């Protein structure tokens, strides 16, 4: 297994109470799995990625990467194994450094030396690497990233996250802030690079069609739990209407919850039953 999330629970303080962001979540990703993750707002998708990346510690449970227990590793140490792209294109690059400088920083992980960041040889290598995006960025190596469009910037971020061939790639709605044309482009680039390098990937998306068409697995979260985890043939048979129906069913359960009956566990059961019916 590349990724093992074992019985992870994560809560956040909210006034005197605590919000449960993740409730006893277990998830395995095999090598070269590409799993999409969907779920309503506040379902815990980002928190799950944060726990995996080390941005926050789980209250309970363990996280293993490529067989190593990384539960107590700080984020910067885990990043040797993980590439991550956020929704906001501004989050993945240094705005006032050039395309070449950003990429040059990303071609290795860990502490830095006093050798020059950009040498003629490095520059040629970077031009070649960024050329793989087919966006013409190889001609704009000396431009500041701040001057790139959101799509170009996010494509560069994906490349930077992948260039060291991490074991695991985490994508958190990484095309959501882009216009439809750019979103398509960045998603296509992501799929191509992931396939080329065979990188295990976990992609959060709010677009059901994307969740269905991309990858070999689909994970659905609700209220801090994984309520659906489909793979291969099962996933391929799934259609948008099925997912909408599932969401609606959960929505009904939600109303019931508001009225004071039922619970998270019951709801998860409900969804599981539904999944089997599909």
């Amino acid at each position, binding site marked *: 297994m590349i990724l093992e999330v074992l019985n992870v629970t994560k809560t956040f303080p909210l006034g005197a109470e605590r919000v449960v962001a993740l409730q006893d979540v277990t998830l395995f990703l095999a090598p070269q799995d590409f799993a999409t993750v969907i779920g309503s707002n506040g379902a815990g998708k980002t928190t799950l990625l944060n726990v995996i990346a080390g941005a926050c510690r789980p209250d309970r449970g363990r996280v293993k990467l490529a067989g190593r227990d990384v539960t107590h590793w*700080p*984020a*910067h*140490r885990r*990043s*040797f194994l*993980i*590439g*991550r792209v956020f929704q906001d294109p501004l*989050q*993945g*690059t*240094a*705005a*006032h*450094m050039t395309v070449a*400088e*950003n990429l*040059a*920083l*990303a071609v*290795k*992980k*860990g*502490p*830095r*030396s*006093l*050798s*020059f*960041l*950009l040498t003629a040889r490095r520059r040629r290598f970077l031009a070649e690497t960024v050329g793989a995006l087919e966006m013409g960025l190889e001609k704009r190596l000396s431009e500041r990233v701040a001057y790139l469009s959101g799509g170009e910037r996010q494509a560069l971020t994906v490349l930077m*996250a992948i260039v060291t061939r991490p074991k695991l790639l985490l994508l958190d709605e990484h095309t959501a802030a882009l216009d439809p044309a750019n979103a398509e482009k960045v998603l296509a680039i992501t799929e191509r690079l992931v396939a080329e390098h065979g990188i295990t990937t976990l992609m959060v998306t709010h677009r059901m069609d994307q969740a269905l068409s991309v990858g070999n697995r689909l994970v659905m979260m609700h209220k801090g739990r994984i309520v659906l985890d489909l793979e291969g043939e099962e996933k391929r048979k799934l259609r948008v209407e099925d997912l909408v129906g599932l969401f609606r069913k959960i929505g009904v359960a939600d109303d019931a919850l508001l009225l004071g009956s039922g619970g998270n566990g019951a709801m998860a059961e409900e969804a599981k039953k539904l999944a089997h019916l599909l």
Partner: protein
Amino acid sequence: MLILHAAEQGLIYGLMALGVYLSFRVLSFPDLSVDGTFPLGAAVAGILILQGTNPFLAALAGGGVGLLAGAFTGLLATRLRIPGLLAGVLTMIMLYSLNIRIMGRPNLSLLGRPSALVQLSQALGVPRAYENFVAAGIFCLAAFLLIFLFLHTELGGALRAVGQNPQLVRSLGMNPDNLLILGLALSNGLVGFSGALAAQYSGFADVGMGVGTIIAGLASVIVGEILLRPRSLFFAVFAAIFGSCVYRLAISLALRYGAALGFTASDLRLLTALVVLGALAAPTIRAALKGETS
């Protein structure tokens, strides 16, 4: 004469401005410890010179203790999670007492003592009137080149990235905290070195000589940026030194001719702060004006 003196001071304080550029612009960390590390460098260099140490070594020692003090501020801000401004203030306050302990009294006179500036120029055969200017220029040029080259290394690049996006640096397998500590150490090392040279230049070290260092440094950085509008790193680094020279010239002119307009030396800090305030507020004011008209 006025211009020469202003240039001498501009170059000596330009080293300090370079340090402030590193913390304020490169790291995006407004570091107030410079108000303490500037006189710290002066105090250490001063006491060493009085004890007969070579003035070059004394200046380097001033830079060295600045380095340590900067790292201390970095440790407070990262390991102990103290907010940046407060971490700087704490270091500054501690250094106030420490500087008096180092000197044994609130000030030292270095008149007639050897100065690294003078010795360097004499070794090069520079005419007497230009000794301080040429030597300060050499020190400044060396610091400029070192910083400029450093910012183009992998480590320097990481330092620039940490000021813009610490999250990115973390995702590249580096600890942003360590980089911040390193950056603050370098910054205050320059400030300490600047203080050590300032003491040798002016012939005294005084515990009060650091008051307003941060404001003078910020004013230099900002004035340089406004006048040069740097697009490249080369000019961005150069702008700090250039701004420092312009700032010192403006102060000299204000002191010389300001009396006619009714203000005195004690008004300088107010004026400097207003310049910095205006420059920092300009984008907000401009945006507000635009918002109203459109």
